[in-house]
């Protein structure tokens, strides 16, 4: 266990070093880059990735995946918009939207836990389903189809655009989510059982855990994450759209995996996910500032993703080899 902790810490340390290096290199290349205020505000553009990626870490640790999160963002956004347009108080609308997203997650979780269909297939189906429902709501609600709903009251717009103590609200929210989900994953019995399900689902079952409930709950958390992310985006743009998160799913998975969570399950931390999303976000921002069109930054992010996994992979096989060697040296007590 201490070994595991150490190796995880090492990866997060690596990410922190990478972020510092990134800042140093770009402040050398681009004059006037190192402006704290600008950097903090650039967070607004990518915080939504982190908000969705942190709860997604739970799902991937159990060995699953949820590709419907992007659609859930759109569902959250359009729910807030349509409810508000029909005279519901904006804060109540926000709450209802989050509940809708948790229900969406529950649907994912129920199907994944109680059928043998693979998580990718299930969430692929619900991805189309939720995106479709969002479109239907938007079409039925305002008859404008793809057009957004705008004109939200100021307090709601302030949620993502305001500041407290000179720090953008979005960063506070991101920290809040990090602390809540981090505590849940790393310091509770529930969190430990999430890992156990990912490492060995059968062992978890035989040790008396309700694996089905745990798997289901991680999808509900992912749904909630998508909901929070969608609501924040709605507030940030001050416009509700059904297709708001349609391109978010790949960056979200990138953040989780780059943060050190194994796509095969059983390994990963919430802090790593957050650091990876910050790293990718600053990378995007800095490349754009130094004159690279935003679409082309995907090349750099793609290369980094592959290299990072290669790096971890080689370390992992090395560790595995060492462990197996040690096992061989131990006399056959365990057998």
């Amino acid at each position: 266990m201490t070994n595991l902790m150490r190796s995880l810490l090492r990866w997060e340390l690596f990410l922190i070093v990478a972020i510092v290096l990134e800042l140093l290199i770009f402040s050398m290349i681009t004059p006037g880059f190192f402006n704290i205020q600008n950097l903090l505000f650039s967070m607004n553009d990518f915080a939504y990735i982190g908000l969705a990626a942190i709860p997604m870490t739970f799902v991937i640790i159990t060995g699953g995946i949820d590709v419907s999160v992007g659609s859930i963002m759109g569902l959250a956004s359009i729910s807030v918009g349509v409810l508000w347009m029909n005279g519901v108080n904006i804060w109540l609308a926000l709450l209802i939207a989050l509940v809708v997203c948790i229900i969406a997650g529950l649907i994912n979780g129920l199907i994944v836990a109680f059928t043998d269909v693979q998580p990718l297939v299930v969430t692929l189906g619900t991805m189309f389903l939720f995106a479709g429902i969002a479109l239907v709501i938007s079409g039925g609600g305002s008859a404008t189809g793809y057009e957004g709903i705008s004109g939200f009251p100021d307090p709601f717009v302030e949620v993502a655009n305001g500041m407290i103590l000179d720090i953008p609200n979005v960063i506070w929210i991101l920290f809040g989510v990090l602390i809540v989900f981090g505590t849940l994953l790393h310091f509770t019995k529930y969190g430990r059982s999430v890992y156990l399900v990912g490492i060995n689902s059968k062992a978890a079952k035989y040790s008396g855990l309700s694996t089905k409930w745990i798997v289901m709950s991680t999808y509900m958390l992912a749904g909630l994450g998508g909901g929070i992310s969608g609501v924040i985006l709605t507030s940030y743009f001050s416009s509700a759209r059904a297709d708001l998160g349609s391109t978010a799913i790949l960056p979200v998975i990138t953040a989780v995996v780059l943060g050190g969570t194994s796509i095969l399950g059983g390994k990963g931390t919430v802090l790593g996910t957050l650091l990876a999303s910050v790293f990718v976000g600053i990378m995007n921002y800095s490349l754009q500032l130094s004159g690279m069109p935003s679409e082309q930054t995907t090349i750099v992010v793609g290369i980094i993703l592959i290299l990072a996994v290669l790096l971890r992979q080689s370390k992992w096989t090395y560790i595995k080899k060492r462990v197996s060697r040690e096992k061989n040296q131990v006399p056959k007590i365990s057998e």
Partner: protein
Amino acid sequence: MKILLKLLQMRELSIILLMILFFLFVGSINSEFTSADSIILLLSGSIILLVLAVGQSFVLLTSNIDVSVGSIMGISAAVGGTLLVDGSSLMFVIISVIGVGALCGLINGIGVAQLKIPAIIMTLGMLGILRGLMLIYTEGMWIEDIPSYYKMYAVTDFLGLPYPIWVGIVICLGAFLFLNKTKFGRYFYAVGDNLDGAKLVGLPVKTVGILAFVFSGMSASVAALIFIMNIGFVPNQTGSGIELQVIAAAVLGGVSLTGGVGTVLGAALGAIFFTVINNSLVYMKIPAYWNSAIAGLLLLVIVISDTKFQSYFTKRNQAKLSNQHIESQGLEDSSP
């Protein structure tokens, strides 16, 4: 093995039956839907997805996944578009475009089979890299002015069917014969069904893994060639977001993500069914924004009921086997 084959055949049969029922249902609401013209239109509309799904099933059969096909299609279309505008000969265009797709697939394959990077990560990375490269290559511009002789292929009939449909038929049959009638083709099933087993009996596991991605990449470039033909220009977003539709279509057609189960014909049928669902709503006078909700719901219902169905069958078979086992044991016990 015979039972397994039968089940597989049933899967394709059930998709065809479902599709016929769906056709009759929509046709009963609007008879235009079942006219020959609209069916041919539907088929040509499904060819891009069909070709991609056939390519993807090679990767899925070896229990990997390729989410980079949309970007490979994009960059192939960009290369093909510029070559066509420059007035290169048709043969040269086709060969170089398919070469681009094969190269991208080769990189994916080496990453996954040689360097052991999980397929979803490798192809996710390539998705970003190739999309960015395409934008650098085109400088963010759309490619227009595709020569009209090339665009004409999309609507020119050959033996009563437009060229793209023939391309789809040839690729489908070719892939089916390769996978089911050649020894090397069977390796794809073996590798996907049991990787370690395949390794132990000495199959070229790595080559098979790499080739699967190469085929997937090539199918994406063929899809790009058809895309240019149909649309007549190459926008920046060519192919973006299609990867999940492709996987959905293959799954709909009975290809399993755990590898070793499914056929290319199933994948092709899945792609056609997916397109049929998306295009039928217009005929039923339902607004187009219902498309993805219905497609998603149908996908879920079909996949879930299929797994329930399959597990029922395997249970029944197991019960049969254990009954036989008990019977034979009983005979042994009573014999002395």
